[in-house]
């Protein structure tokens, strides 16, 4: 959050002032100072475990636990005072203004939750076994009020500090998070209930398993990130064999994920297709560099070596404990809907879904990237080509999904590639001698490999025909 607008300052000031007034009005009777300090320190500890959420600079921490425990043990004013300990949380990231706002927000939420608890007939003080189950209804009311106030205040500040132009509605506070908060709030009741037997040691015991569970979750997330960046680094290593495909794997992965999300695949399948996209060309390693980088037409043998690459890729990744779907996707990403692809010549629905998704993203990135013999095409042109070959080369459903996603979210191609239609056609930028070399290995695509052409041996064609409209579009260019 950089500069805040004046209205945002007013809002933040109002929240803090409201919290301060609530505390100042008292009364302080019934506030036990040991409980207050113990719960306050617990809150500071909770605040210190805040984990960043994916969107914007939002973080989440299990602060509802101490807040709700304070509602029962100390009442509204005490709970608001406990909320003030948010300021002591050890966190990197939030600016002083954010910290103050967070503190005011938690204090105010806790105060109102405390009021709600009393309103619904709850009694402040350490619960005894006789308090159950009567305490549950007012406690549940307090939890709902706390979570709703907290979320509303947060939504307000997100709205006021949003970056100009970003849609106001999407601020990344989803229903799941709300439920998580309520789930954690239940531990507040447990702390209060245990106070009669464990005294101020209760928060310590309750927080240990919660901290460890947070730790385990972050460990998992860190490991996953590490994994992703390692896979992508190794894929780049594979790509160094062919200068023109730098970043290709990464972009195919991104494109496949866009399609997968658009057709609402389950989360773990989206994950799998992300890796499948990253690794789809790994079998290129099995193709001699001299063939990959050859400038000129290929012999039948060299051609056969190239056609083997999806199988080689499968050989390499077979040992990895991925979903089988990802493996099938890597093996079949050069199949065509009309059955004229390789390695198996599958057609239509016989082709695994992952492979059909990868084929679209693969072709699109190949079209929008530079090649040794031609420049990158602008996105609209590539989209038109995808549309044109939907049904023969590509699955039309996935083409539609991809186009929808690109139109909404845009496409980030390789650096130096044209982004829009207004740029000069890519061919202009390529020296004529580059174009005259005929088909280069990097340009081999199923469309060029129609059986008769393969049988005829040399697949070289006049360069100007490469992009002639009558020619089947060489979409799957990257091998």
């Amino acid at each position, binding site marked *: 959050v950089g500069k805040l607008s004046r209205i945002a300052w007013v809002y933040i000031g109002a929240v803090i002032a409201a919290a301060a007034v609530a505390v100042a009005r008292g009364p302080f009777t019934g506030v036990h100072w040991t409980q207050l300090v113990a719960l306050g320190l617990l809150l500071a500890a909770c605040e210190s475990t805040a984990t960043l959420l994916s969107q914007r600079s939002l973080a989440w921490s299990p602060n509802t636990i101490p807040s709700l425990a304070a509602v029962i043990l100390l009442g509204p004013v005490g709970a608001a005072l406990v909320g003030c300990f948010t300021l002591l949380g050890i966190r990197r990231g939030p600016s002083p203004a954010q910290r103050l706002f967070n503190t005011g927000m938690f204090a105010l939420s806790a105060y109102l939750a405390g009021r709600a608890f009393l309103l619904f007939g709850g009694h402040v003080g350490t619960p005894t*076994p006789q308090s159950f189950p009567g305490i549950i209804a007012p406690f549940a009311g307090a939890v709902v009020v706390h979570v709703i106030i907290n979320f509303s205040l947060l939504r307000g500040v997100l709205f006021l500090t949003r970056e100009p132009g970003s849609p106001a509605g999407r601020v990344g506070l989803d229903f799941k998070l709300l439920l998580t908060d309520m789930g954690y709030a239940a531990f507040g009741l447990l702390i209060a209930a245990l106070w009669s037997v464990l*005294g101020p040691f209760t928060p310590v015991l309750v927080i*240990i398993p919660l901290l460890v569970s947070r730790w*385990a979750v972050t460990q998992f997330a860190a490991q996953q990130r590490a994994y992703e960046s390692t896979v992508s680094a*190794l894929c780049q290593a594979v790509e*160094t064999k062919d200068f023109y495909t730098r970043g290709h794997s990464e972009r195919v992965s991104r494109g496949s994920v866009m399609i997968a999300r658009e057709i609402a695949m389950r989360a773990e399948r989206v994950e799998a297709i992300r890796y499948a996209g990253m690794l789809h060309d790994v079998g290129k*390693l099995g193709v001699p560099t001299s063939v990959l980088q050859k400038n000129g037409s290929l012999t039948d043998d060299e051609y056969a070596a190239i056609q083997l690459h999806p199988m080689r890729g499968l050989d*390499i990744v077979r*040992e990895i404990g991925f979903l089988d779907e990802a493996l099938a996707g890597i093996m079949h990403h050069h199949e065509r809907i009309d059955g004229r692809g390789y390695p198996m010549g599958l057609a239509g629905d016989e082709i695994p879904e992952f492979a059909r998704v990868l084929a679209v993203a693969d072709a699109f990135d190949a079209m929008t990237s530079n090649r040794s013999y031609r420049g990158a095409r602008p996105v609209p042109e590539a989209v038109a080509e995808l549309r044109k070959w939907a049904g023969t080369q590509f699955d039309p459903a996935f083409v539609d999904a991809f186009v929808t996603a690109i139109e909404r979210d845009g496409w980030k191609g390789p650096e130096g590639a044209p982004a829009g239609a207004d740029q000069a056609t890519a061919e202009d930028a390529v020296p004529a001698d580059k174009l005259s070399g005929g088909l280069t290995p990097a340009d081999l695509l199923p469309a060029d490999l129609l059986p008769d052409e393969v049988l005829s041996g040399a697949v070289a064609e006049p360069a100007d025909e490469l992009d002639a409209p009558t020619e089947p579009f060489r979409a799957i260019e990257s091998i």
Partner: protein
Amino acid sequence: MAARRHEPRGFPRQVLDSGQSLLVVFAGVLLIAAVAQTAALGVRDVRAAVAFGGLIAFGELLRLNLPGDREAAPIATAGALAYALLIRVGDDPARHGPEQVISVAAIGMLIGALPHLAVGRPARLSAMAARLVAVACVAAVFRPLVDHSLIGSRWWSELPVMVSLVVLAWLVEAVIAALIRTDLLRGRFGVTLLDEFHVQLPLGAAVGASALLISFAAEVMGLAAVWVFTAPLLVTQVALRRYTGIRATYLQTVRALARVTEIGGYVETGHSARVSRLAVSIGRELGMPEPALLELEYAALMHDIGQLSLREPIPGGATVLVVREEQRRIAEYGAEIIQEARVLDTVADIVRRQSDPCRPAERSEEPPLSSRIIRAANAFDDLVGSSVEPSRAAAAVQRLRLDTASEYDPQVIEALSRLISRRSVLGP
């Protein structure tokens, strides 16, 4: 989970050697004695016994694998410890003896292990035995204290005793696990014990705290508390399971992608896998801790990845035969690739320094131990290849030994030599 198939494992799962058999027999005797005594004395407070037994069975059902082929059943352990530490349920004092704790824990564990057995995942008896022994220790100390009302009725008098007993249980389990590992992997006990502490500490803390919470909460909330306080452990378990899964996938991926050099014809088939196995064995022989061994394994798997930068593969991929300058270039290039990953900087450094001789000129410092190990393991594999002939291996070690003055680290070569002679005694 498919990922588990390829867990790093230096030993077959079902072979129990003498130390482990002793432990399992001991636990079995303990179980029989406890059940017999419980039967003779009669079960006290059946409801609590059933509730805790159910929790233990549930926890055993949800047991999970931790990194490094370890097994844990956090919820079962927490439940068993809580039952051992139970003082009151509601207003009624808990009067069960240590023999009943051991019986309930053992029977719960066996019931929880049954579904695993039914789907063809036999229980790891030594791990279960270790858990049972740890619980038995706590019960043997704490139950008599409760029985003779030696334990106070206020938290500040009970808690220190209970906390120390939970720590004791954790230590017992860690020491047993470390003993078993030392035996199996021929590591050093001190190192394996530290590894064990390192892996088990966070989970152990959560288990211990949950056990205390459950036994105290039973006083306020009755037996419902048994289930309520397992919630954080459940979250932890789900996350840890996914963590272990992705770690395994990570290793498999690096292994698989390390093979791209083989498929590209740059190195001999199986070279990276053999070098990494050998390097890890040498590292363990030299007493390297587990995190360093993992980095060593990654580096060894990827030590040749820099060859991808060569336009034409070296014949046979034997880096020991190419000139120093070329080796250095390959190592440097490999390190650059790995550095791209941003999370493997140590690994990149190990790969970068692998071509440096171990007695460098005064201008630079000695390469890290892992680099020296990979250098030796790589040279050994270049000379021996996939051959399993002991005489050839011995000759290769002999040749490397001649070079120890300048090229290879003498202690690494000695460790390699010990491994080779042991292997030729035991067979390949």
